[in-house]
């Protein structure tokens, strides 16, 4: 980890950017107490997969100010808003310095260690919608001024999509300015299901934090927990048995199929093909039954634990999984017949909502969305973990970047996931399913980052410990936040009906965005 002074940080990051660090993996706000408020940047090279970590801190707690890196990576736009929201760090040069999750009338910044909870009682009034934002600009003499900016004009035709809307897949809210049916501008409002999971984690023991990860992206419950367990195990220096690695990999892939089947179903429903929606759900049910037999949960599974898994696989697990795969292969053909090949589906998806490769990388839109734009961003290939280095699978990449490519990437990934499972399912080695851990788990001082390929992109965990049994800071790199941040870019010029198709294929899950 490189530490750089706030005055030099922008220059240093710009140098790194021109060196080829084009992927801002994660941007974490930090309150180091005595050492000030700061930001940790996780950077990656898409060409070689090299990573580097840069951090910076400002000692000014009254008016902490740091230069924005929006001009280098577009991913910083939402992430810096998040940091502003949590820590109150103002980013000079950021075009839109509003809060991201919390209400505009929130007092203070909750992630500061000196935050006073009593300042924010439960407010019973509605938040007034305000189409005004502001940004901070540095004048040549070094002083900083606040500038006001209007997001939507008075006479624009704005419709509100969400937070209660059938097509936003949860409580996400878009304010869309329309010209007839054409989208002129789109403003994302997050935070309707913000639970402050990262804040909660700071007062929970490590095993307790695990209970919350399933509730981030509930369609990647295994992946999320896998990432956090890996991170804690890395910090503890704990090696899990091969059996656990096998089980975790198989579970991850089953979860991926589960998520992609739900993606297929919901996309069909969004486009009005309600019948295909039911087929998808009917088949997903079979995976949930397999999960339930082994983990005891269907959506929230609590399966991975530090040093292993909660319970050994159910006796008929192998048989059931094989039956399921044998069943899903012909069913997938049926899906393709009823939806993929359909000319109406093609008309709705082809060439709609094109995301260029550069934008995908700049926004950090990983997962199926990035791969549909031609960016080989699969963590399973870039930084193999668990059993992924030992199995043979193809990373599905398409270059069109439109809705149809995003759709096909996921449909093909179902097949690849089935291939991975088939390679592993017969060879699960014997061994213990849980390593011995101490009753009270304390991590040594330090910071760790580990990432897995979630159902919809790179899910990362950044953990900083000060040697306690609680994490000092636990940051989850949300898979969904970069995905909603591309919405404005992708949707401009599209029709209102395309917004639904784009939202469906970008495939965000709102609890994961809001955390």
């Amino acid at each position, binding site marked *: 980890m490189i530490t750089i002074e706030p005055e030099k940080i922008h220059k240093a990051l710009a140098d790194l950017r021109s060196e080829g660090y084009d992927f801002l993996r994660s941007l974490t706000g930090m309150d180091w107490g005595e050492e000030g408020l700061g930001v940790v940047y996780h950077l990656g090279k898409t060409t070689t997969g090299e990573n580097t970590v840069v951090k910076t801190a400002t000692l000014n707690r009254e008016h902490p100010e740091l230069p924005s890196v929006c001009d280098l990576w577009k991913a910083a736009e939402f992430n810096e808003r998040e940091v502003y929201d949590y820590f109150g760090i103002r980013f000079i040069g950021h075009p839109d310095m509003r809060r991201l999750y919390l209400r505009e009338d929130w007092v203070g910044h909750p992630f500061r260690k000196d935050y006073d909870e009593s300042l924010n009682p439960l407010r019973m009034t509605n938040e007034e919608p305000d189409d005004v934002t502001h940004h901070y600009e540095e004048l040549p003499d070094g002083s900083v001024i606040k500038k006001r900016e209007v997001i939507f004009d008075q006479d624009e035709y704005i*419709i509100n999509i969400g937070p209660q809307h059938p097509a936003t897949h949860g409580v996400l809210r878009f304010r869309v300015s329309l010209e007839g049916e054409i989208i002129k501008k789109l403003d994302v409002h997050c935070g309707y299901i913000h639970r402050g999971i990262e804040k909660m984690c700071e007062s929970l023991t490590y095993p307790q934090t695990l209970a919350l990860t399933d509730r981030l992206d509930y369609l990647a419950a295994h992946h999320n927990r896998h990432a956090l367990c890996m991170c804690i195990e890395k910090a503890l220096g704990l090696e899990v048995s091969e059996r656990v690695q096998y089980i975790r990999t198989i579970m991850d892939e089953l979860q991926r199929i589960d998520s992609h089947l739900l993606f297929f179903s919901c996309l*069909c429903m969004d486009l009005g093909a*309600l019948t295909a929606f039911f087929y998808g759900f009917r088949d997903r049910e079979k995976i949930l039954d397999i999960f339930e037999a082994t983990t005891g949960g269907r959506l929230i599974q609590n399966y991975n634990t530090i040093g292993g898994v909660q319970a050994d696989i159910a006796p008929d697990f192998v048989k059931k999984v094989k039956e399921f795969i044998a069943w899903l292969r012909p069913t997938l053909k049926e899906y393709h017949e009823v939806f993929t090949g359909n000319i*109406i*589906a093609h008309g709705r998806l082809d060439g709609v909502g094109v995301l260029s490769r550069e934008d995908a990388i700049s926004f950090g839109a990983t997962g199926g969305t990035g791969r549909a734009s031609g960016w080989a961003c699969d963590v399973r290939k870039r930084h193999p973990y668990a059993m992924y280095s030992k199995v043979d699978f193809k990373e599905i990449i398409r270059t069109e970047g439109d809705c149809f490519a995003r759709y096909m990437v996921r449909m093909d990934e179902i097949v690849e996931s089935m291939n991975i499972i088939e390679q592993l399912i017969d060879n699960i080695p014997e061994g213990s399913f849980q390593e011995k851990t101490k009753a009270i788990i304390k991590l040594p001082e330090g910071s760790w980052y580990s990432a897995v390929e979630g159902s919809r992109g790179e899910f990362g965990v950044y953990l900083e410990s000060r040697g306690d049994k609680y994490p000092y800071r636990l940051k989850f790199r949300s898979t969904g936040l970069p995905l909603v941040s591309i919405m404005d870019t992708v949707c401009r010029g599209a029709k209102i*009906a395309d917004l639904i198709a784009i939202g469906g294929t970008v495939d965000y899950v709102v609890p994961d965005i809001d955390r």
Partner: protein
Amino acid sequence: MFDFSIVTQWIHSLLTSFLPEEVAVFIECVAIGVCILLGYAIIAIIMIFMERKVCAAFQCRLGPMRVGPWGTIQVFADVFKMLIKEIIAIRHSDKFLYNLAPYIVILASILAFSCLPFSKGMEVLDFNVGIFFLMAASSIGVVGILLAGWSSNNKYSLIGAMRSGAQMISYELSTSLSLLTIIVLTDTMQFSEIVERQADGWFLFKGHIPAFIAFVIYLIAGNAEVNRGPFDLPEAESELTAGYHTEYSGMHFGLFYVAEFVNLFIIAGVAATIFLGGWMPLHIPGLDGFNTIMDYIPGFVWFFGKAFFVVWILMWFKWTFPRLRIDQILTLEWKYLVPIGLLNLLLMVIIVVFDLHF
């Protein structure tokens, strides 16, 4: 074949025997009006139940099962629920138009419904420009939908209504063109006449390829005209929540809902009448024995059988396909259906002029 006009004439003579002519006619009109409303409600209930069961079957479900055996009472329960729900007045809406809109829609629907010949001698509105009247009457519905969207003071409703206007007016063209194709063949616009002419074979079979093409175009355009999937984007629930009737509640919503289903039945009924012989049994020229047996099946069974078969096909469409986008709907209409419809009309004219049909 039983002629229902015997019954109506008997009633008429009975009434005129002790009442002056005008009073008798007035009473008959009222009675027929009540019958139509009753029939309308019954058809709506059957249609809603059928929609639920058919859609469930396509989706690997059972559909309503709880209220009554096989869920048969479910629709009545829903109607009851809708009747007792409050009709909410929306702030800043145009109250008069807002309350008027559902009635315009239902009026158009009932007028069109009365044109259908259910059985031999069982026609209510039957005059020499029957089809023309039907088209005109059913077009009134779009006014109601536009008003509903406009007066609701809701942006979703407005977009839904505008889409609906564009769509329904466009697709009316294709519906008319395909009906016109058959009118060329029959040289009459009177429903009873059209049915009578199909005694020796339905127009779908008599009219060669053009009749078949016209049938397909009619099904597509008719489906679009009643705003049903895959053309249901005026009320596309994933985009516009419920389109033009977003703000309606209680029975006002119920009227839209019922009208949508009966309109579907009307489209199917017209298709059955014009292309599939209406109440006319299946006759195969040359097989007199077969034809006599077919004649024993009453006319209304034939009519409803055919109509519900067409309804089933339209439901099959709806529950298979994704929704189109507004520009794609208009492309389909103006680039495909209208030119093909026109060519088809020309083809039919050629066939009729050179007497090539059966």
